[in-house]
């Protein structure tokens, strides 16, 4: 399995040499496998967003290396624009960065900056907006007259249209209604499955992580606290609670069910799987 991104001995320290010295990230070693979805979870202030801004070279680590398919992204600082087109980053509440007259021209801002030809830009805009659930009619409208959820889709499409090899999303579904969450995260997963993009999703929602992620990276106080497959991480409930994190609600339900001897397994993380488990339990009784 190749790694799309690899972090080696990464530390980010603010105010080095002053009394305000603060290590935002401390000796991080981790990797993000190509073509998979890695979820990053962690309590507020654990360094998730700082980590995200390192991945496309927006900020420079105080120590350590960020390797994109084996290459150090800081090797040629002048070609950082190239790196940024290969590692797309969608910030928290990206809807506040929209600026252009129409949705279409806003989505094409990134591809245009990459210097792509017009017909290629058009193709990419169409593709990105389809996966983000934007209709042809919406492309012609002003981004400022859309609803919050629609704006979010436009902003994500704006980064998706750059067709990055790695796509990092900081809380892509925060503040959306359940249907909107499902559509956005589902659309991204579908896109990933077709194009083999590596996805990194930062989220506070254990349900979203359980539903979509393949691997989980747990951050605590600027360090990698746990790392592994979804099953492996959610098995260790106690350790998660220590990091002020939680389990998906459905898993907590199954732990309670097991205590009452109503079912056998507690490794149930998604509602779909829970349904099957319950059906099994009912038929066996």
């Amino acid at each position, binding site marked *: 399995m190749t790694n799309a991104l690899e972090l080696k001995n990464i530390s980010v320290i603010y105010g080095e040499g002053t009394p305000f010295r603060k290590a935002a990230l401390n000796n991080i070693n981790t990797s993000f496998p190509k073509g998979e979805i890695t979820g990053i979870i962690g309590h507020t202030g654990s360094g998730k967003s700082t980590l995200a*801004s390192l991945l*496309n070279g*927006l900020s420079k680590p105080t120590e350590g290396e960020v390797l994109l398919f084996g290459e150090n992204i800081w090797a040629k600082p002048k070609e950082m*624009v190239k790196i*940024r*087109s290969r590692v*797309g*980053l*969608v*910030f928290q509440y*990206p809807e*506040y*960065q*929209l*600026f*252009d007259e129409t949705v279409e021209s806003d989505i094409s*801002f*990134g591809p245009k*900056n*990459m210097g792509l030809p017009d017909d290629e830009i058009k193709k990419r805009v169409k593709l990105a907006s389809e996966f983000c659930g934007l209709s042809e009619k919406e492309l012609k409208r002003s981004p*400022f007259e859309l609803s919050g959820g629609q704006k979010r889709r436009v902003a994500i499409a*704006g*980064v998706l249209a*750059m067709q990055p090899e790695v796509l990092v999303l900081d809380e892509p579904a925060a503040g959306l209604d359940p249907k909107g969450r499902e559509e956005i995260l589902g659309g991204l997963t579908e896109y990933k499955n077709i194009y083999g993009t590596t996805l990194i999703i930062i989220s506070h929602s254990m349900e979203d992580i359980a539903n979509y992620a393949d691997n989980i990276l747990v951050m605590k106080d600027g360090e990698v606290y746990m790392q592994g497959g979804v099953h492996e991480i959610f098995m260790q409930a106690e350790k998660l609670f220590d990091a002020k994190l939680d389990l998906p609600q459905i898993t907590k339900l199954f732990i309670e069910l097991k205590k009452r001897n109503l079912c056998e397994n507690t490794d149930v993380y998604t509602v779909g799987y829970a349904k099957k488990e319950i059906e099994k339990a009912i038929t066996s009784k």
Partner: protein
Amino acid sequence: MLKDVTFGQYYPGNSLLHRTDPRIKLIILVEYLVLVLVAESELAALTSLAFTGFLIAVSGVRFSVLIKSAKPLIFVLAFTAIVNLFFTVGEGEPLVSFYFIKIYQSGIRNAVMMLLRLLSLVLGTSVLISFTTSPLELTDAIESVLSPLKKIKVPVHEFAMMMSIALRFIPTLIEETNKIISAQKARCADFESGNLLKRLKALIPILIPLFVSAVRRAEELADAMECRCYHGGEGRTKLKVMKSDAKDYVFLVTVTLITVAVFFLNRLTWSEVVGFCADIF
């Protein structure tokens, strides 16, 4: 890009100037400006310089901090001094005469006076107001000092409220700007290369979201204020009531006396002063 912006360089402390009633400080500020600008003779200039030194000393602001705050003004100071040095046409023979460059004795005097005057203005006002008065105290003081204008229907409270809201939102907007810059950078936006026109155009993706969010924040704030029954200044009480005590009045009277003294010192020459002192003793 905006990392170097420092604003409201309030320097927390508990010095005499920090403890002085901000309203008194505002009045002293006006007197101080008059004093520095009026001082013309050597004696008056020395007095104003000594008083500036006194203000700096009692402010408790570290000298290195002061120097740092005055640094951006080096060019203006140097320019003023040079213009005064070369372009003052004085009486008698020039001291230096080199082609069209003529330096007179009065030119040197003007240059030095101007330099000291500007430096005093900058350092004096900053220790008197910006370093030792928090922005909130300042707006409260302005509201209070200007409150007589309410009689002629000037919306003093509204101005003060606008000022404190504006000050409050400067850091928020800077943070917002940095976020937007990062977001557009992540979309491969390039702010650092190209000619002037291209760079100006590159600012559009920053400015439009910034304006949009400023307007949005303003609307939210207005709603939040209305929800908490804000209805203007009438009958509104303050969390911190400003009080003047004896020390403040002593300070005010002293500064007033110094200002009056400077007016007199301007008319006196050294010999007159010496004679005056001789008369006393």
